[in-house]
């Protein structure tokens, strides 16, 4: 019950902040509301058990990207203050976006997702696909202190940061390296573009 209440509170903050980002009249106010919605999303990550991603969200989005956006706002003096912040396609955009939301919400609610655990019966949590390397993962989880010692009946533990790191450095190593190159090239490109 507490968990559900917390989820609803965080989700409400996130959604209100997101709406405020879109309807705020000045860019600066939009940017500040954007920070709040990023914080809300981080809270939802943590509620979902992705603790590391919650921290990364705060570091990267709240810390870095928001500051970047605020810098851009400061560097581009607001020259369009007296005009409307919206273009002429507001109504048609609202209709398109509203129908998209309807489709997404209905699909998300009605679809028969292959849940392995969650709000269903505990028996659903026992499915392990064939070929899963349990030994290493379990040992890692125990080493990282993920094991709920004497807590019968409980709680499916979310994966640990150690497991995420091992996953990044083994099966997803190529993607990881390619991503670092993309980041490097993009930042060098950004400097080149923004320079005089």
């Amino acid at each position, binding site marked *: 019950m507490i*968990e*559900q209440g917390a*989820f609803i509170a965080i*989700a409400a903050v996130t*959604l209100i902040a*997101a709406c405020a*980002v*879109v309807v705020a009249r000045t*860019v600066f106010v*939009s*940017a500040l509301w*954007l920070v709040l*919605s990023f914080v809300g*999303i981080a809270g939802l990550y943590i509620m*979902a058990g*992705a603790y590391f*991603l919650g921290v990364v*969200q705060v570091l990267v*989005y709240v810390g870095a990207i928001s500051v*970047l*956006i605020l810098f*851009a*706002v400061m560097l*581009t003096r*607001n*020259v*369009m203050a007296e005009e409307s*912040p*919206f*273009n002429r396609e507001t109504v048609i955009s609202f209709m398109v*976006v*509203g129908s998209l*939301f309807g489709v*997404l*919400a209905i699909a*998300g*609610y009605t679809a028969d*997702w292959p849940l392995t*655990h*969650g*709000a269903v019966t505990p028996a659903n949590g*026992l499915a*392990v696909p064939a070929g*899963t390397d349990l030994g290493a*993962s379990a040992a890692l989880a125990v080493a990282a202190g*993920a094991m709920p010692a004497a807590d019968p009946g409980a*709680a*499916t*533990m*979310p*994966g640990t940061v150690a497991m*995420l790191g091992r996953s*990044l450095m083994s099966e*997803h190593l190529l*993607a990881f390296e390619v991503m670092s190159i*993309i980041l490097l090239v*993009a930042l060098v490109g*950004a400097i080149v*573009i*923004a320079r005089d």
Partner: protein
Amino acid sequence: MTAIPLWWYLFVSAAVFCIGMFGALTRRNAINVLMGIELMLNAVNLNAVAFWRYTSPVADLGADESAGRFIVGMDGQVFVVMIIALAAAEAAVGLALIIAIYRSRRTVALDDFTLMQG
């Protein structure tokens, strides 16, 4: 463990995505459009985290069932890490473009970006 159904996450994610899309479609300021795109990316990440949490393979920890169960695969979180890195690169390049255009045209209104108009 969790008393929160999956569709709550999907609902919030869809709402954030649509709000961000509305912003990206209707705002005249290019920086506001970038903010809308960031909101959309965040919604996608939230979706990925929710599906990771609710549909990942789950294993018993040890022989005894009561020892607890934990999520085996971390692929969903790896996806989110990648998307966050890409979003950071995208934000840096996008804002650099906006600043470069502002330098030469003295405006950030998308209606005035007509340099490449046929």
